[in-house]
């Protein structure tokens, strides 16, 4: 499989009124053909800047961004415009032209590429059919709901037969149900059209639902990159852990109390290990918080528990969980 994008040691520094701000620091990663690649991070982490280096809406300060082996920075204005026909983008704010009908909006990239009128109308209608909005072709965007607007934007993005689709917080302005529908649509397009998709988001649920691989961006740095199942079940970096495990809001019930986090994956999620613990050792633990999430159909869970008072008992509990194949890590206050 070849790489669609290849970023090597990318830096991006903004200079404003003599002040410098580095939005990307030494980011290297690749996006593979046919995959759905997620880029996740807190707001202000630099992920929007990162995605804009992929179609050179942002110039990189240092390093290279290659698209199918071509260095984007080396392209002349005209060549860059040509390449951009192959790199579509959808946005959080949809960015449709409000003064043009839905059909005219979808026609735009075809018009730019110089496709004759009759052909482009036909193509635009096909695209609207794919996103299920053909009956809205003569309507103006203001009459559409947010989800419908994003569908039109997707139709517009697909019209020029791109090789890759960049999604910049494409579902962040939508409610959970509509987000789910849009993600299903993207997944369908990815599978049916073999379209590579890069998704920028701050929502874990988006990555969990449709991404194959994920990069975690933290304060301009690439904290971690890998398969979604690996990163989510066994996060290595601090930033990844913070995203995967929500912070523990609880303090131990007294000063000397000890709190641990136990993490289990799909293979153990149907084992009642807390009940087993009580039954086998007679020791009780206090469950402070617990949650599970599904990544690619496999359940992953974590539990924050407070251990018994006696050090000996604590060790017994930890050993019991470890023997069961769960990962156990100590949690500090407000960690």
């Amino acid at each position, binding site marked *: 499989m070849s790489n669609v994008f290849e970023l090597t040691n990318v830096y991006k520094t903004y200079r404003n009124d003599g002040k410098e701000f580095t939005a990307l620091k030494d980011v290297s990663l690749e996006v593979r053909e046919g995959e759905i690649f997620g880029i996740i991070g807190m707001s202000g982490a630099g992920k929007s800047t990162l995605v804009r280096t992929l179609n050179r809406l942002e110039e990189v300060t240092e390093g290279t961004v290659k698209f199918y082996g071509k260095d984007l920075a080396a392209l002349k204005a005209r060549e860059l415009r040509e390449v951009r026909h192959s790199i579509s983008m959808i946005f959080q*704010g949809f960015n*449709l*032209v409000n003064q043009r009908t839905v059909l005219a909006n979808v026609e735009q990239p075809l018009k730019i590429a110089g496709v004759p009128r009759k052909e482009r109308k036909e193509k635009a209608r096909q695209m609207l059919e794919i996103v299920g909005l053909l009956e809205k072709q003569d309507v103006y965007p203001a009459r559409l709901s947010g989800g419908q607007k994003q569908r039109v934007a997707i139709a517009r993005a697909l019209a020029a037969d791109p090789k890759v689709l960049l999604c910049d917080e494409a579902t962040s302005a939508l409610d959970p149900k509509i987000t789910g529908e849009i993600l299903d649509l993207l997944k369908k397009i990815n599978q049916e059209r073999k379209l590579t998709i890069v998704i920028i988001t701050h929502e874990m649920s988006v990555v969990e639902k449709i991404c194959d691989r994920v990069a975690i961006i933290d304060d301009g740095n690439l904290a971690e990159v890998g398969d979604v199942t690996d990163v989510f079940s066994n996060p290595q970096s601090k930033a990844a852990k913070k995203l995967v495990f929500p912070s523990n809001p609880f303090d131990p019930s007294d000063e000397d109390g000890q709190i641990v986090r136990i993490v289990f994956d799909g293979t153990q999620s149907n084992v009642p290990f807390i009940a087993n613990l009580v039954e086998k050792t007679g020791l009780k633990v206090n469950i402070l918080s617990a949650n599970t999430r599904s990544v690619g159909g496999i359940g992953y869970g974590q539990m924050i528990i407070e251990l018994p008072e006696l050090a000996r008992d604590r060790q017994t509990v930890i050993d019991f969980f470890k023997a069961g194949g769960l990962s156990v890590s100590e949690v500090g206050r407000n960690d």
Partner: protein
Amino acid sequence: MTDYIKDAILSGILETFEMTLFASLFSYIVGLPLGVILYATSKGRLLENRAVNGIIGFIVNVTRSLPFLILLVLLIPFTRFVVGSSIGTVASIVPLTVGAIPIVARMVESSLSEVNPGIIEAATSMGASPLYTIVHFIIPEATPSLLQGGAINVATVLGYSAMAGVIGGGGLGAIALQYGYYRYQKDVLWTTVALLILMVMLIQEIGIRLSKKTRKT
């Protein structure tokens, strides 16, 4: 009011319309591209260019800050050069146009600046050139605002046209000045004033309706 004055007022209305129409038209022919250039070359825009923006911005600011009456007088030689005379309805179209150009340019610039930057980003990401983006994305999106600004501009030109009467221009302004002011004919003065107000209101109304009709949001 004598029939003679009634006729004068009637032809004054037509002359005012003529001056307003042509001066507005010509000022848009020059002012619209100027406004587009001002917008596109300003900081952070598609064709950012400090030098071009600075020079055009300076000229626009200077001409805009001159009182129109002074501009009228200053332009007399230029008007004579362009139309061969400096008095009459046709001659007044020249200073009116020159006076309106910077106002139009700034109004156009401000309308275009209202366009959501996201649309420009979307156009660029589709591979549109800066010029294509301006013509096919920014201007269509700004059309309702441009029309609203247009109505304000035309009304301003109409107001200015009344001033042209001072240096021998035609129209209602000249009638108000000659009969109403110099001859103390208060009825003529008030009639012309009422007519001018009506015309401004009419233009505003047409502009607002056009703007509303084209606005799809």
